[in-house]
């Protein structure tokens, strides 16, 4: 028999009132109290209460279904793995609200990337009326019930110790794919957290290896996929979730993944435009000077930097200069002859053809624009260059503190036309209010490109999104764009599709693979053939993916 506990807190004051002849409530007050209790009572184990409490929020059908499934079938422990932009935060908010209404959850820890802290706090307060607080002072851990923090802060002393003393009813972790490696401090920190109810949010539950899902699931529900040795033995050779039905079924018990195509939501369109830029004579000379280093014997030990340097020339002379400066630091006074020549060539470059093009485009668009670049030097240069031409902009970097990021986002939203972001800034801000993206230079990992676009092309984006890809003619850039990205139709794909394809190829490090192609090919022809092989492989994986989809129907 289940233990019955009688709450005795009502009794004493009652007896006291009999003794003192009051005070008593009026009949109306008494009835109101009971009615309030009736309104708040949860009549059934099943079903969702949260939507009744949130009349101004209209969750999408798939979001409601996720919340229902997590509460009714997954016992409140789940990996929410919808594709980018389907509203995982809304799903998590619904689930949290449901548990709070039912009185099952009071104390909550929410760990998110630093750049997302204030966004989570705002969404929980505004959309869900959950009084979430950003962790800024250490007393917050103890005094506030719903705390949002970055994992990097939380895992450090003295926070770590204080957190371990708290009795959390629910732990929510955003961008949980960062916990795929069980050897990291973050993993260990989360593993030692008491997780009564727990949600792990990630758009990419498996990025490279099948073990990643093992570690993620083991954090949530240790033993669900067996122990480490059992897993290695049974699934060690499995290349992807799709190929092992048994494993897939097991994982699906703790993970929900909605795909864009399944949701039936109308998304705004993507328009992609390639903008080919011609180098000026000086820029071309600089590029060629760098390229000729491939044969230079004194450069041998820097061979690996060559591709990076070529990409830098395509971005800005400033970017290249910074790299050269770092290299020079390593020579003790004795500079190899090519160095001087390069510096000279840098000095003779007077215009940045790409920046000129960007300026033209921004003026023509006459609306908010985000520029992504891989290099900080380029970011600084662009900001200066646009300023010279009467266009104000704000920078955005991963390294910015939380407050600064919010401030920059606000400035961009309300005051300035352009936001210039470096790669690390691509993750974790939502900029639906903007729908023009300039890829000033292209990252070599298609997933990173996807994340960039995902900043603006997400639920809530009402306009068609326009993407401008810059590439300099007859350079590595043009090759990568034409030979790879265009061939695999990267920009036309829906969010998440590529994710699956790369998982199928089990391609650990796309960047390195490309680097290798560019670097080891002896001539253009060989490079082209290698690139064609690569695109053929991606195509092939794509076909398999499509075939599986048909078979599943």
């Amino acid at each position, binding site marked *: *028999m*289940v*233990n*019955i*506990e*009688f*709450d005795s807190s*009502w*009794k004493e*004051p*009652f*007896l006291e*009132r009999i003794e003192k002849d009051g*005070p*008593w*409530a*009026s*009949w*109306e*007050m*008494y*009835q109101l*109290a*009971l*009615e*309030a*209790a*009736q*309104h*708040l*009572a*949860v009549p*059934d*184990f099943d079903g969702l209460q949260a939507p*009744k*409490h949130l*009349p*101004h929020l209209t969750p999408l059908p798939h979001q409601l279904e996720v919340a229902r499934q997590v509460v009714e079938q997954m*016992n*409140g422990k789940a990996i929410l793995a919808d594709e980018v932009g389907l509203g995982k935060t809304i799903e998590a908010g619904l689930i949290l609200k449901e548990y709070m209404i*039912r*009185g*099952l959850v009071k104390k909550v820890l929410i760990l998110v990337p630093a750049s997302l802290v204030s966004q989570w706090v705002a969404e929980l307060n505004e959309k869900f*009326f959950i009084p979430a607080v950003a962790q800024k002072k250490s007393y917050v851990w103890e005094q506030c019930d719903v705390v949002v923090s970055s994992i990097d802060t939380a895992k450090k002393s003295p926070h770590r110790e204080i957190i371990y003393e708290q009795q959390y*009813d629910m732990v929510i972790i955003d961008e949980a794919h960062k916990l795929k490696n069980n050897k990291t401090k973050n993993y260990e920190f989360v*593993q*030692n*957290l*008491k*997780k*009564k*109810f727990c949600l792990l949010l990630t758009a990419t539950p498996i990025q490279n290896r099948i073990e990643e899902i093992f570690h993620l699931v*083991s954090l949530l*529900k*240790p*033993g*669900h996929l*067996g*122990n480490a*040795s059992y897993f290695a033995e049974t699934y060690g050779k499995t290349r992807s979730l799709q190929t092992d039905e048994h494993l897939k079924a097991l994982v699906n018990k703790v993970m929900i993944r909605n795909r864009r195509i399944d949701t039936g939501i109308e998304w705004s369109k993507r328009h992609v435009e390639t903008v080919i830029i011609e180098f000026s004579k000086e820029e071309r000379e600089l590029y060629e000077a760098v390229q000729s280093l491939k044969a230079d014997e004194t450069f041998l030990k820097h061979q690996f930097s060559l591709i990076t340097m070529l990409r830098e020339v395509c971005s800005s002379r400033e970017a290249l200069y910074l790299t050269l400066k770092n290299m020079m630091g390593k020579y003790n006074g004795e500079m190899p002859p090519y160095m001087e020549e390069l510096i000279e060539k840098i000095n003779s470059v007077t215009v940045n053809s790409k920046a000129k093009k960007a300026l033209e485009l921004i003026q023509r668009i006459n609306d908010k624009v985000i520029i992504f670049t891989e290099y900080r030097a380029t970011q600084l240069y662009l900001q200066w260059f646009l300023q010279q031409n009467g266009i104000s902009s704000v920078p955005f970097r991963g390294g910015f503190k939380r407050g600064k990021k919010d401030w920059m986002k606000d400035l961009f939203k309300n005051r300035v036309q352009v936001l210039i972001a470096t790669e690390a800034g691509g993750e974790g801000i939502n900029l639906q209010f903007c729908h023009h993206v300039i890829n000033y230079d292209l990252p070599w990992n298609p997933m990173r490109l996807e994340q960039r676009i995902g900043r603006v092309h997400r639920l809530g984006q009402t306009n068609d999104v326009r993407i401008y890809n810059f590439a300099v003619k007859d350079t590595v850039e043009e090759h990568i764009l034409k030979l790879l990205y265009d061939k695999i139709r990267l920009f036309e794909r829906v969010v998440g599709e590529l994710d699956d394809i790369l998982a199928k190829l089990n391609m650990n490090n796309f960047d390195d693979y490309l680097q290798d192609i560019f670097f080891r090919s002896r001539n253009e022809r060989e490079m082209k053939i290698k690139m064609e092989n690569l695109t053929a492989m991606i195509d092939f994986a794509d076909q398999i993916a499509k075939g599986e989809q048909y078979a599943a129907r």
Partner: protein
Amino acid sequence: MQQDEIQQFLKRYFRAHECDIVEDYDEYLTVQLSIELDKELMNRPFYWHYIERTGGVPAPMKLTLITKQTEKTRTLKGERLHFGSPRLHQIFQSAQRRGGYIRLYEQAHAEPQASIPLHPWLGLNVKISYQCDRKKEQLLSLGLHLISGGIVEQFHEKLQHLSLTPKIPDYCFTISPIIKPISGIGRLEKYIQQIIERDDHTWAEEAIARWREDMALLDHFYEEMDEKPECYYIEKEALEEQYKPKITVSVINGGLFYLQPRSS
């Protein structure tokens, strides 16, 4: 809870606490709060501390609560209320806090020469919570006749058909309880326990099964380790908190009711 119900509830709540409803429209209310409710709802302890210390003239706030969105309320300054908004929940809490204890007499029409005896009843409205990793609540209203020990269900509903008053009516007299209120509470608790025991407890058995299943997985996960790491024990504790079924009974409100004897 519909928006109309919310408005009705608000009006009754404020009137019951003697606050003037200054503006009363279909789509919104403006209420002049009493000092008491200002202190309870507006969360400005420093102001009240200051007024009390300096002997200043207290100025309790006005509160505008909008329950319907119309052209008229679009630009109106006020709080928009719906089921789920923190303000409404605060008022629910306040209502529960302020309506916890009662003593009433039935309004009987007695003549001087034939006075009417009123029998004591203990009335309790309780909430039973069934909790594991999920939760269900059930409300129960019971009345205990403090003379005979007889117990009546749906007691509150029955009370609503009577005319009740806080003062003993003329020519009525109360009969002293044979069962003391404190032991009356004990009897009702026992009665509730019996109701619960007769219930279907499949939910608890299922929760225990889920608990065992997860526990077995956990043991398997760490089976190769002779000495279990700390996180094993943390996880074990978490599973218990998550799944262990428990039932709690709490009193919403209750009190003494002096009623005319009835044949039923």
